[in-house]
C-alpha cells in the first residue's frame, strides 16, 4: 500500500524537479504535466472514501526526530480526507485553468514549483498526526503562499502583499508553535491521537488556556479572521489561479481545519466557544459589510471569502458547545453545527473557486476588474455569466444551489444555540442569530453586485482595455465543472453527507461517534421553519438594500480610511523603522568614551549590585598584615601619580607619571620579596616608557579634553565606584579564602622537574603550554604590526593625509 507520507512527498518531489525538467520539455505547456499529479492524488484519495465511510482510519509512521517525539506520522481519517479531496480536486481544476491563464512568457517553472510546494505542504498540514510536523508544513504553506503572492515580484504592491501575508501568518504560526510546545509540555506527547486521549486529565492545567489561545491565534491569522484578515485582500495581487486555490479554497481553510482538529481537545472550554464563535461571527459580518464597498471584483471576493470563513469558523465554535457536558441525547443536536460547517466548507470551495476563475476570465479578457468600468458582459460572455450566477446565488444562499442548503443549516445552528443554558447564552444567545442574519443580508447584496454590476447593466467598451469576448474553452472547463458541482450537490447532498461528512464528524467528536450516529439528513425543504423565514427575510431586505445601495453607501465614508486595521499595520511598520532608528542611534554613538562608560556601568550594577545584594561584603580586615610606613609612602606616591595623569598638560608629563605608577608596583614586588617579578615589572615599565617616548614625536597634538562638567562628574563617580568594587572584592577574597592554594605542590619543583627556581619551573614546565601560547601571542602581534605597516590601503592613505 502506498502510504500517505509518500503522497505528501510527491508534490515536493515535483516542485524540486520542475525547474530542471522545464527546459527539457518546452514543446508542451508544462502545466499539462503538473496536472497529472493532483489528478493521481485525487484518485488515490477518492479510493479511500468507501473504507473511511465505513469507519476505518489509517496511520502511517516514518521516524524523523524520534529523540524529541517529532515523527512524520500521518493519519488518514474522515476529517483529513475531506480536506485532502478539496486540496487535490480544486488543485487539479486550478492547474487546468492556469494552463490557459498564464502564457508561456511567464516563468512557469517557478509558478508550478511553488504551487506544488504549496500542495505538498497543505497535504502535510492536514494529514500530520504529529503537531510539530503539522507546524513544519504549516510554515511551508505560508512560505509558498508568500512566493505565489509575489509571483510578479517586480510590482511593488505584490511585494507588499506578500510581506503582509507572510508576517501575519508566520507570526500566527510562531504563536501556534508556542501553543504546541505547551501542549507537548502538558501531555508529554505531540501526537493528536494520544493528546486527545490524555487531555481530559489536564483540563485544569494552568497552561491549558494559554495553549488554547496561542493555537487559536495561529488558526485565526491563517484563516484571515478579524482583525488579522487584512492580509487576504492584499494577497489578491497573486495571479488569479493562486487566489482561487490558496486564498479561497485551501490555505485559508487550514485555520478551520486546525479548529476542527482541536475541538476534541479544547472544545469543552467556554473560552473556546466564545472566541471561535464570536470571532467567527464578527469576521462574517465585517467581511460581508466591507465587501459591499469594494470596487475591485477580486477585493470583493477576498472580503467575501473572509466573511464565509468567519461563518464556517462560527459553526465550528457553536458545535463545541456539545462537548461541554459530555455526551447526552440533548447535546448531540449541537454537533450539527459542525456538520453544517463541514458541508459549507465543501460548498464554499466549489462556488468560490468558480467565482475567482470567473473574475480571472474577466480580468484576462477585458483587462480590468473594476466594477465601475464593467457592465453588460452577459451578452458577450454567456457561459461565464452563467457560472458567475450559479456561484453568486449559491453564495447568497438561494436554491437550487448548494449554498442554500448549508446556509439554512447555519441558521438552524444559530437558532439552536439559543436554547443552550451554558456559557451565559441565555443573555447573549439572541445576539448570534441577529449578527448571522445581518451578515447574510450583506452577503446577499455583494452577491448581487457581482452578478448585476458586472454582467448586466450598460456595456462600456470605451472603458475597457480590450473588447469583451467569451473565454477560450480551456479556461472555461474548470469553472464549468465547479458550477455543475454546485448544482449536483444541491440535489444529492446526502451522498456527500454520508460518505464524507459523517466520518469527519467522528474525527471531531470521537466520544459522540461511539454513542450515536452523527449524521444529518440534509433536505432542501423542511416546511416553514424559522430558518426559511430568515432566508426569505435575507432576500427581501437584500433586494431592497441592493436597489437603494447608492442612497446608503455614505455610511462607508463615516469611518475614515486611516482608522482601518490596514493603516494600523502600515503605521506600525513605518513607526517601527523611524523609532528603532532613533532609539538605536541614541545609544550607539560611535564614541569609544561612551562605550567604556557602558561597560563600567554594567560592571558596577552587576558586580557591585550583587555584592551588596548577597551580602558578600561582610568581611573583616583586622587580621590582615599591618601596613608599614614605607608601604604608605609608595602607595600615596602612586596615587598622586595616577591622579596627576588626569591633569597632565602635556603628553610627556603623562607618560612619565604613568611610569611612576609602574615603578611603584615594581617596588611593591621588591618589598613582597618577589625579585623575579620586580625585575620583570621594571623591564616592562622601562621598555614601554621608552617606546612611548620614541613614538611621542609622531603623535598629534595633545588636545585638552573639553567635556562638560556633568560628564566629568559622572566619570569621576564611575571611576571611584569601579575602583572601590575592585579593591573591596580583592580584600574580601583575601579574607574569605576557602581553600589552600595548590601552589604548595610546586614548591617541590626540584624533585618534580629538576628545577631549583620554582618560577622558572612553572613558566617552562608545569605551565609551559601557557608560555608557548603567550609567545605565539607575541608572534602574532609582531607580524601583525609588520603587515599593518606594509599593507596600506592606497585610497585610505590619501584620506589619512588629507586629515
Amino acid at each position, binding site marked *: 500500500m502506498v502510504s500517505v507520507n509518500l503522497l505528501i512527498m510527491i508534490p515536493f518531489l515535483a516542485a524540486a524537479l520542475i525547474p530542471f525538467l522545464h527546459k527539457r520539455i518546452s514543446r508542451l505547456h508544462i502545466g499539462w504535466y503538473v496536472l497529472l499529479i493532483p489528478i493521481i492524488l485525487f484518485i488515490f484519495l477518492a479510493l479511500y472514501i468507501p473504507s473511511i465511510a465505513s469507519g476505518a482510519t489509517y496511520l502511517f509512521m516514518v521516524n524523523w*526526530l*524520534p*529523540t*524529541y517525539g517529532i515523527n512524520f506520522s500521518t493519519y488518514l481519517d474522515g476529517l483529513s480526507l475531506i480536506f485532502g479531496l478539496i486540496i487535490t480536486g480544486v488543485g487539479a481544476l486550478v492547474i487546468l485553468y492556469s494552463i490557459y491563464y498564464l502564457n508561456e512568457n511567464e516563468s512557469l517553472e517557478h509558478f508550478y514549483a511553488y504551487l506544488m510546494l504549496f500542495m505538498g505542504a497543505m497535504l502535510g498540514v492536514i494529514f500530520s498526526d504529529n503537531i510539530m510536523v503539522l*507546524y*513544519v508544513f504549516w*510554515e*511551508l504553506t505560508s*512560505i509558498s503562499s508568500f512566493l505565489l503572492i509575489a509571483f510578479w515580484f517586480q510590482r*511593488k504592491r505584490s*511585494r507588499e502583499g*506578500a*510581506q503582509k501575508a507572510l508576517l501575519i501568518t508566520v507570526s500566527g504560526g*510562531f504563536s501556534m508553535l*508556542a501553543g504546541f*510546545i505547551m501542549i*507537548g*509540555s502538558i501531555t508529554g506527547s505531540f501526537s493528536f491521537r494520544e493528546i486527545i486521549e490524555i487531555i481530559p486529565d489536564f483540563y485544569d492545567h494552568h497552561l491549558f488556556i*494559554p495553549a488554547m489561545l496561542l493555537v487559536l491565534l495561529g488558526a485565526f491569522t491563517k484563516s484571515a479572521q478579524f482583525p488579522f484578515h487584512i492580509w487576504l485582500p492584499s494577497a489578491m495581487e497573486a495571479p488569479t489561479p493562486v487566489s482561487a486555490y490558496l486564498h479561497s479554497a485551501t490555505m485559508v481553510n487550514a485555520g478551520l481545519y486546525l479548529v476542527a482538529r482541536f475541538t476534541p481537545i479544547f472544545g469543552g472550554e467556554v473560552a473556546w466557544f466564545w472566541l471561535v464563535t464570536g470571532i467567527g461571527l464578527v469576521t462574517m459580518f465585517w467581511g460581508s459589510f466591507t465587501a459591499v464597498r469594494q470596487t475591485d471584483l477580486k477585493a470583493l471576493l477576498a472580503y467575501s471569502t473572509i466573511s464565509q470563513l468567519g461563518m464556517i469558523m462560527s459553526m465550528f465554535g457553536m458545535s463545541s458547545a456539545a462537548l461541554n457536558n459530555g455526551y447526552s441525547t440533548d447535546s448531540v443536536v449541537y454537533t450539527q453545527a459542525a456538520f453544517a460547517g463541514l458541508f459549507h466548507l465543501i460548498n464554499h470551495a466549489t462556488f468560490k473557486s468558480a467565482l475567482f476563475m470567473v473574475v480571472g476570465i474577466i480580468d484576462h479578457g477585458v483587462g480590468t476588474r473594476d466594477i465601475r468600468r464593467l457592465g453588460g458582459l452577459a451578452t458577450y460572455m454567456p457561459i461565464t455569466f452563467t457560472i458567475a450566477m450559479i456561484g453568486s446565488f449559491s453564495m447568497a444562499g438561494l436554491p437550487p444551489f448548494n449554498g442554500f442548503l448549508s446556509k439554512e443549516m447555519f441558521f438552524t445552528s444559530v437558532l439552536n444555540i439559543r436554547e443552550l443554558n451554558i456559557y451565559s447564552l441565555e443573555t447573549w444567545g439572541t445576539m448570534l442569530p441577529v449578527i448571522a442574519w445581518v451578515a447574510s443580508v450583506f452577503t446577499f447584496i455583494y452577491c448581487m453586485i457581482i452578478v448585476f454590476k458586472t454582467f448586466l447593466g450598460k456595456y462600456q467598451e470605451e472603458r475597457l482595455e480590450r473588447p469583451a469576448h467569451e473565454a477560450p474553452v480551456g479556461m472555461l472547463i474548470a469553472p464549468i465543472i465547479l458550477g455543475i458541482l454546485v448544482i449536483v450537490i444541491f440535489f444529492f447532498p446526502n451522498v456527500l453527507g454520508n460518505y464524507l461528512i459523517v466520518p469527519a464528524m467522528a474525527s471531531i467528536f470521537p466520544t459522540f461517534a461511539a454513542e450515536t450516529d452523527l449524521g444529518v439528513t440534509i433536505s432542501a425543504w423542511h416546511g416553514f421553519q424559522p430558518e426559511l423565514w430568515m432566508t426569505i427575510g435575507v432576500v427581501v431586505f437584500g433586494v431592497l438594500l441592493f436597489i437603494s445601495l447608492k442612497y446608503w453607501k455614505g455610511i462607508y465614508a463615516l469611518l475614515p480610511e486611516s482608522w482601518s486595521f490596514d493603516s494600523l499595520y502600515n503605521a506600525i511598520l513605518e513607526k517601527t*523603522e523611524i523609532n*528603532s532608528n532613533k532609539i*538605536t*542611534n541614541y545609544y550607539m554613538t560611535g564614541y*569609544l568614551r561612551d562605550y567604556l562608560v*557602558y*561597560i563600567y556601568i*554594567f*560592571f558596577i550594577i*552587576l*558586580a557591585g549590585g*550583587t*555584592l551588596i*545584594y*548577597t551580602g*558578600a561584603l561582610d568581611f573583616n580586615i583586622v587580621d590582615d598584615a599591618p601596613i608599614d610606613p614605607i608601604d604608605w609612602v609608595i602607595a600615596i606616591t602612586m596615587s598622586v601619580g595616577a591622579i596627576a595623569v588626569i591633569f597632565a598638560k602635556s603628553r610627556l608629563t603623562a607618560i612619565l607619571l604613568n611610569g611612576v605608577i609602574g615603578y611603584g608596583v615594581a617596588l611593591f614586588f621588591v618589598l613582597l620579596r618577589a625579585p623575579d617579578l620586580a625585575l620583570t615589572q621594571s623591564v616592562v615599565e622601562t621598555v614601554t616608557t621608552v617606546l612611548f617616548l620614541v613614538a611621542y614625536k609622531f603623535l598629534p597634538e595633545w588636545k585638552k579634553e573639553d567635556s562638560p562638567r556633568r560628564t566629568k562628574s559622572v566619570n569621576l563617580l564611575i571611576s571611584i565606584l569601579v575602583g572601590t568594587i575592585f579593591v573591596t*572584592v580583592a580584600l574580601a*577574597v583575601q579574607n*574569605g*579564602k*576557602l*581553600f*589552600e*592554594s*595548590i601552589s604548595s*605542590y610546586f614548591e617541590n619543583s626540584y624533585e618534580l622537574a629538576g628545577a631549583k627556581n620554582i618560577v622558572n619551573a612553572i613558566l617552562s*614546565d*608545569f*605551565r609551559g*603550554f*601557557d608560555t608557548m*601560547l*603567550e609567545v*605565539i*601571542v607575541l608572534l*602574532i602581534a609582531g607580524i*601583525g604590526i609588520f*603587515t599593518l605597516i606594509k*599593507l596600506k*590601503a592606497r585610497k*585610505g592613505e590619501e584620506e589619512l593625509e588629507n586629515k
Partner: protein
Amino acid sequence: MNNLLVLPMALPVLAGIILIFFRNQIKLQRGISLGVSFANIGIAIYLLNRIQEEGILRLDFGGWEPPFGILFVADSFSVILVLITSIVAAICLLYAFSSIGKSHEKMLFYSFVNFLIAGVNGSFLTGDLFNLYVNFEVMLLASYVLIALGGKKIQLRESIKYVVINVLSSWFFLIAIAYLYGSVGTLNMAHISERIAESGQTPLLTGISMVFLTVFALKSGLLLYFWLPGSYSVPPTAVAALFGALLTKVGIYAIIRVFTLFFYHDPDFTHTIIGILAGVSLIGGSIGAVAYKDIRQIVSYNVVIGVGFILIGLSVGTQAALEGSIYYLMHDMIVKALLFLLAGTMIKVAGSASMDEMSGLIRNYPLFGWLFFIVMISLAGMPPLSGFIGKVLIGQGTVETGSYVLLALAFLSSIVVLYSLLRIFLNCFWGETMISFEDEVPMKMGWLIPCVLLSAATIGLGLGTEVFAPYVSDAANTLLNPQIYIDAILYDK
C-alpha cells in the same frame, strides 16, 4: 591516542607559523590552511565518537596530572563546537580564496586566520581557566590584525575601539581569574568546580561570577554589544563571516561553561540575571535589526539576537533548553557565516551597502537570491531548517520552568529577524532589475559555492537533526551534571 586532542589547536598554530616562511606561495598557503581545517573536521568527528564510547577525554600537557598542570578536555559540547568551527572555517577559507585579494594573501592573511582558529579551538578545548585566558588572547590578537588588515581608514577607526574594549575586557578577565584563584586556590576547571561544590557558592563567589559574566558578556555581545556592529562591518567579507560565526560563540561557550561548571549553585540569582541580560539583548538587537538600511548593520544586529536566543537556554537550564542552546549554537555558527558571506557578496555585486540602492538582484543572480531566501527562513527558526529544533527545545525549556517572558521575547525576536531580512529580500532581490545583464558584476563560483555548502549544511542539520541527537544530548547531560566532568578529570587516572 589522546594526543589527538591538542591537534585542533596545534595544527592551525603550526600552519600559521610555517606559512610565515612562505609568504609569496599563495597556492601553498591556501592548500595548507584548507588542509588543516579538513583535518580538524576529521579529528573532531573521530573524537566525538570516541567520547560517546569512552566518556570525556583529556590530555595532560607535560604529563602533569590535574589539578597541577594544564590540560585539554574533550567533552561532547567542546568537540561539537570544534567540529562546527572547523567546517565554518573551511568554508570561509574557500570564500576567501576568490575574494580576499592577492595583497592580503601575501600579507600573511592565512597565518592570521589559522591563529584565530587555533585560539577558538583552544578556548573550547582547554580545561584550565588561565589557559582559557591565554587562548582568548591568541584569538583576540589574531582578530585585531584581521580587522585592521588592509589599512582602510574606517578599519583603523573601528579596530581602535575593538582593541581598546577587548584589552579592557581581558584585564577584567585576568582580575576575575585572580579573584577566583584567591578564593579557591586552583585553576583547573574541574577542580574549581569541585571546590566550589564543596564549600558552597558563597556570596563572594557569586560576586566574582558577575565579574566573569561582565567579561564574557563583552566577548559574546550579551547586552554589551555596542562594539559589535561597527567592528563586524569593516573587515573583508570572509573575515566578517568568520567573526560573525565564531567570535561571539567563544564568549557564549565561556558563559555556558562557567555557569554550568562553576557557578551553578545559585541559579535563581545568577541564571535569572543571565535571562534578563539575554532578554534585553533580544530587545536591543531586534530594535537595531530594523533600524537601518545598511545591510551590514542589519546583519550585525542579527548576531546580537542570536546571542540572546542561545543564552535563554542557559538561563532556563533544563536538559531540553540546554540541548536547544547547543543546537542553536551549531545552527547560528553555520547560518551567521552564510549570512555574512551573502551580505558581503551582495555589497560586492551591487557596489553599495544600502538597501535603497539595490533592486531585482534575483534576476541577475537567481541561485544567489534563493540562498538568501534560505538563510532568511533558517534564521527565523522556520522548519525544516536548522534553527527549528533549537527553537522548539529552548521553547520547551521556558515552558517547563514557567519563563513565559523569555518565551515571548524569543519568539517575537524570530519575527523581527524574519522581518529584518525580509526587507532586504524584498528590496534588494525582488523589485525592478537595476543592473543590466551587460553591466552586472559576474558572480564568481568561488563566492557561490561556499554559500551553497553552508545552505546545504543548514538544510542538512535541520532534516538530519536525529544524527546529532545523541551527541547533543550527551553534551547537555554533561553540562547539567558537573560531576561527570569532575570525575573524568580528577578521578580517572
